[in-house]
């Protein structure tokens, strides 16, 4: 039966072929067995931790990460070292929480990092704890990563037995423990304040801010929350130094990151590349271009919450970093690139995108809870050829009433696919109303009324 079971990513990805960028975060692809402590250490693992706790003061570690230019990989791209420096120098407990809730459609990098390279993350968490003076770190992993959680727990046990976690780490006078915390299925728990609620054993309702987690986070204590990939990068920065790290990437987005490519491409998957690689390079050179010999209709550049872009030359030649993508009117987000081919019915795709937010709305505030349901209902009507004149403006209006009026960014994200798709393909939405058929795709020209 074993040959049926699959690790992530499934073959042939883990077979060594020459990588486009010398593997750092994804080194496990070239070196089998990286999940084992022995193999990880034989390849430079825990050298960063050694350097930090044996040779550096906590402040020096913060400065090193600041100097590296590392920015958060969870979505907003906030400089990691700067975030750490907000932690007040007070006595009493402080905490580090790794965000591995990874649930944004189009994003699947933490999944690979956890299942294959757990020590790289553990090392990053330990270094971060040392830097801010925390003695307990938590790794919040979405509950569906059951195997990833097993892998992480095994790795923690190994590291503990080797004196890398626990009392007097590596013979220093620094002590720290780490707990893996499984979530239980809720996209909202990736939002950092909801994550803290969930870690405290509650429903994942976002908290009112301020106070910010740096001041009052987990158990109302100063807390740093960083994405799984952000913290995995920290191990490399401490091992090789800030200058080395910032030699990769662009002026304002340093280093390398894992781009997640999905949708209608020949070779979907995770690609580790220097920050600022272009869409064209990722989609065509590495991803093999659009499947079935088709063309791109549009793409989503940074996970389902980021606005769609048309595949113009200008867009395709844009460097994928925070500033580059912002200049095109969208966002880098979590670097999940979703490609749609020219046979995609945009109404159907947008419906599917918005349905996600309806399903995942936590229900705490009315604009998001009710508004997402209305959006989905109206999109359903359009998709089924039952749309009425005026529906498109109503859609935009309802969307506008969610944006800016919601308690957290999940609500703000729900209308994003509608607004961006309508900007690019308004005539296709109108066609659904006037012709009661699709303009493209398998249902083109067929009567939609009563289909569902």
């Amino acid at each position: 039966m074993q040959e049926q079971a699959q690790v992530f990513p499934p073959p042939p990805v883990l077979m060594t072929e020459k990588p486009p960028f010398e593997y750092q975060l994804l080194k496990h692809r070239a070196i089998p067995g990286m999940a084992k402590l022995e193999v990880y250490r034989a390849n430079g693992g825990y050298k960063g931790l050694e350097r930090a706790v044996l040779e550096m003061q906590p402040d020096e570690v913060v400065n090193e990460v600041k100097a590296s230019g590392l920015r958060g990989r969870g979505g907003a791209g906030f400089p990691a070292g700067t975030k750490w420096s907000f932690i007040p120098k007070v006595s009493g407990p402080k905490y580090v929480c790794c965000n591995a809730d990874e649930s944004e459609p189009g994003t699947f990098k933490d999944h690979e990092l956890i299942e294959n390279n757990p020590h790289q993350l553990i090392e990053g968490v330990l270094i971060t704890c040392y830097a801010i003076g925390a003695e307990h770190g938590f790794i919040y992993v979405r509950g569906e990563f059951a195997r990833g959680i097993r892998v992480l727990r095994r790795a923690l046990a190994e590291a503990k037995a080797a004196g890398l976690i626990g009392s007097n780490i590596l013979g220093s006078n620094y002590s720290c423990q780490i707990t893996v915390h499984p979530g239980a299925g809720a996209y909202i728990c990736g939002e950092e304040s909801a994550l803290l609620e969930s870690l405290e054993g509650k429903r994942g309702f976002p908290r009112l801010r301020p106070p910010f987690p740096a001041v009052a986070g987990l158990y109302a204590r100063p807390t740093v929350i960083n994405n799984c990939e952000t913290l995995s990068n920290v191990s490399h920065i401490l091992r090789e130094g800030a200058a080395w790290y910032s030699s990769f990437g662009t002026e304002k987005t340093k280093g390398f990151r894992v781009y997640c490519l999905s949708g209608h491409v020949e070779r979907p998957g995770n690609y580790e590349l220097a920050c600022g690689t272009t869409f064209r390079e990722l989609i065509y050179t590495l991803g093999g271009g659009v499947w079935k010999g088709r063309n791109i209709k549009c793409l989503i550049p940074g996970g389902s919450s980021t606005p769609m872009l048309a595949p113009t030359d200008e867009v395709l030649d844009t460097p994928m970093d925070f500033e580059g993508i912002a200049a095109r009117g969208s966002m880098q987000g979590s670097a999940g690139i979703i490609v749609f081919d020219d046979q995609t019915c945009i109404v159907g795709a947008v419906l599917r995108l918005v349905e996600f937010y309806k399903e995942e709305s936590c229900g705490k505030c009315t604009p998001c809870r009710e508004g997402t349901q209305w959006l989905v209902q109206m999109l359903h009507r359009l998709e089924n050829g039952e749309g009425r004149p005026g529906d498109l403006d109503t859609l935009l209006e309802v969307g506008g009433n969610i944006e800016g009026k919601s308690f957290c960014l999940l609500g703000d994200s729900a209308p994003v696919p509608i607004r961006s798709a309508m900007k690019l393909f308004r005539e296709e939405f109108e066609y659904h109303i006037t012709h009661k058929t699709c303009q493209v795709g398998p249902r083109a020209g067929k009567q939609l009324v009563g289909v569902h």
Partner: protein
Amino acid sequence: MSEAGRQRVLELKREYPSSRSALLPALHVVQEEFGFIPAEPMAEVAAILEVLQGDVEQVVTFYRMYNQMPVGRFHIKICDSIACYLRGSDELIEQAGQKLGVGLNQTTTDGQITLAKIECLAACGAAPCLQVNDEYLYNVTPEKLDEVLEKLTTAQENPYYIP
């Protein structure tokens, strides 16, 4: 709850600065043993962790992974979010429903298989994908789905479990 389960919950409790934090992992322990979250062990967890029973219920109903009702031996969850949708997940859901003769969230009469859909599983680069209980299957083609359903019809243990 079994003695082993109780011990596991006590262990979890010791891992956190506040016992209530152990609630989510403790409920996973319950579900592993029973396949869903029955009332009695739920009350036991509440007592061990010193949490009000109502607060535990709120948590059980909030999080999607906790089954409030019994499900089949194998809970098939097919991802139907955008990346899987673009690569044929709707067709897989239809195929599975026809083959099993059940609708979504229904269980085959022999109690063997429950069919469900699920939001993005963070495996979009290997779409379409699904889970059998908590184990993943990637790049699922219609042929592969047939094979999976065939196998699960008679299996006792989850054939897709890897340690």
